[in-house]
Structures are given as C-alpha cells and as structure tokens.
C-alpha cells in the first residue's frame, strides 16, 4: 500500500479511537454524548472506506439522526452526574488488563485467512435467482429473510416494551421561526429521500431499514418543533401501520410454506413483487416504530 493510504487509514483509525475514548471517558456527560454522535458519523466514513455503502447509509441515518435525538432527550431527563466509578486505581489497573486482552485477541485472530467467506460466495452466485439485483438486499430479503423478519419483530418489541413504561412528559419550548421554516423544508425532503432509498434498494445500496430510519428522523424533526401530528397507539390506523410489516412478512412465510414452496421460499416469478411488498410494509412499520420509540411519551402510547 502507498504511503497516502496509510496516512488516510491511520487518520481514520485515530479519529475513531479518539472519539471513542472521548465518548467513554469524558467527565461531562454532555461532552460524552457529543463525542458519541461524532463517532457515529466517523464510523459511517469507515464503512464507506471498507466498501460497505449499505452500512454507510444506515449508519448515517442512525448516527446523524436517531441516536443524536435519543441521547439528547435522555440527557434532558437524566441529570448529569459527572463522575466515573470512584476508585482511582481502577481505571489504570483495568486499562492494563484491557491491553493484555487486546494483545491476546489480536494474536488469536491474526492468522485469519484472506479471501471471501464460503457463504458470501454462495450468496453472490445466487443473486440472479433472488428477484433483486443488489446482493445485500438479496441476503436481507431472500436468503436470510428469517433473520430480517425477526429483526422487524425486535423493533416492534422495543416499542411494545416502551408502552409498558410510565415516561416523563415530553414538552418542547416554542420553536424559533427559523427552525420552523427549516423543518418544514427538511421533513418532506427526508421523506422523499427515504422513498428514493427504498426504491433504489432493489439494485443498489439502500433498502427498507435505511429508508425507515431516515423517514423516522424526518418525523422526529417535525416532532421537535411541534409540527408533527400525534400518533396515538389507541388509533387503529397507527397500530395497523406499525404491525403491517411483521404481519405481511409472517403471512408471506406461512403462505409460501402452505403452498408447498417452503417457509419463505418465494416462487421465482413472484419473488420480485413479494420482496417489494414486504419492503414497503416493513419500511412503514420501521419508520413509525422508530419515530415513536425515540420521540413519544406516555400520553401517546399508554392507552
């Protein structure tokens, strides 16, 4: 590798390390949060560097949007107790332990073979039969669709779990006019970009999750300035839009199993249409679930 590659990789690695250290060891909680948000951004750069644009997209939507809002909201409700654990000798001692462990782990993994994994090769070969052209989407919605079904379920479950809590009320000050105008522009843009990513997902990086996270961030933007409509759990439409993703996914699995093709085995003629249907439904569910997961309070959820 050329020197410039080293400089560039080294700088990225140093940035990641510095930001992680800042996020973990800053005395002020606020500073730690800022560092962590920045770490998310830099990780998106690392994914791009390592040739994983799907992840760069996902990390950008999460790191730049959701996590920031989430942490800042937590900061508002959980006052800043600015200390790490008491004993002064503990960080140093455990630091040495970390170093030793790192050396052992690096030694163990050093000899890992080069070249792509067997499953990865099999996946690339099978892409033409999957109904979509983009390999990552093919893995997510066809080869390993069962994982994805369970993952959509995890999002739903997090929201259901949230419903059980008595949360502090979320009140925001009146937004400045500039902020209002700004969000009136940004929210539709993020919706548009989200739909575009979903549509692109079939043959290029993008897809249900990235799109859902982005739309959720747009919804949150509206929520922050008080423009968002309430999405109360008590309303049938809201529940339907949250449940539609996992439901359609599960029904597709059951239908394919009972029609003889096998659990989640999409017949070739139908696979493109089925995958599209599942993706649209999953995006709706993920977008609304994530928005509620980050930005709702008890008045909206516990009925």
């Amino acid at each position, binding site marked *: 590798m050329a020197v*410039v*590659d080293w*400089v*560039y990789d080294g*700088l*990225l690695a140093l*940035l990641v390390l*510095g930001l992680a250290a*800042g996020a973990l060891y*800053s005395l*002020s909680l*606020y*500073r730690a949060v*800022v*560092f962590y*948000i*920045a770490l998310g*951004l*830099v990780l*998106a*750069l690392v994914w*791009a*560097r390592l*040739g994983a*644009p*799907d992840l*760069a*997209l996902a990390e*950008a*939507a999460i790191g*730049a*949007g959701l996590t*920031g*809002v989430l942490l*800042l*909201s937590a*900061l*508002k409700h959980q006052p*800043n107790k600015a200390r790490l654990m008491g004993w002064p000798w503990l960080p140093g001692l455990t630091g040495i332990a970390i170093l030793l462990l790192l050396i052992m782990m690096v030694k163990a993994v050093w000899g890992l073979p080069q070249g792509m994994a067997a499953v990865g090769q099999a996946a690339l070969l099978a892409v033409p039969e999957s109904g979509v052209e983009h390999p990552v989407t093919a893995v997510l919605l066809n080869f390993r669709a069962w994982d994805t079904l369970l993952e959509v379920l995890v999002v739903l479950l997090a929201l259901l779990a949230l419903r059980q809590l008595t949360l502090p009320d979320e009140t*925001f*000050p009146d*937004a*400045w006019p500039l*902020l209002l105008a*700004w*969000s009136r522009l*940004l929210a539709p*843009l*993020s919706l548009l*970009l989200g739909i*575009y990513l979903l549509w*692109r997902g079939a043959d*290029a990086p*993008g897809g249900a999750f990235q799109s859902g996270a*982005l739309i959720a*961030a747009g919804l*949150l*933007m509206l929520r*922050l*300035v008080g423009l968002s409509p309430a999405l109360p759990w008590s309303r049938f439409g809201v529940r339907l839009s949250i449940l539609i993703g996992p439901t359609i996914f599960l029904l597709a699995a059951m239908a394919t199993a009972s029609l003889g093709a096998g659990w989640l085995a999409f017949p070739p003629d139908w696979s493109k249409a089925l995958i599209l249907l599942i993706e649209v439904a999953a995006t709706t569910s993920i977008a609304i679930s994530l928005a509620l997961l980050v930005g709702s309070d008890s008045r909206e959820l516990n009925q």
Partner: protein
Amino acid sequence: MLWLISLLLLTVMASMVRVVVGPTRADRLLAIQLFGTAGTAVLLMMAYLWGQPALIDAALIIALLAAVITSALVQFLRREHHD
C-alpha cells in the same frame, strides 16, 4: 485525492479540540456541525474516487440530518446551562 481527504480528516480532528475545550455548549454544537460538513465532503470525495454513487446518498443523508441533531439540541437543552 486521498491527500485531500486526509486533510479533511485533520480538520475534523481539530474540531475535536473544540469539543473538549468548549467553553460553551454552542462551541460544541458547532463542532458537531463541522463533523457533519466535513463528513459530507469526505463521503462525496470517496464517491467520486471509487465510483460509488451510493456514497453520494450517504453524504446527502448526513447533510440533511445534521440539522436534526442541531434542532434536537436546541429544543431539548435550550433552557439549561450545565457546562
């Protein structure tokens, strides 16, 4: 091109100093903004360098959503003065 990207990464590092030193929340907020802008620029250059149009989308997302964090910060923490 890579040198340029590295240079941009260096400016990001410089903004880390602002996060640590502060002194006010506004300074740290601006540091996040700088992270966002520099990140966008780096992604755009990578997209150009490796012919990966998807990275342009990622850059777009970051540019779009950096604003969300700013408004979240303003709306959640406006009335308090911790730091």
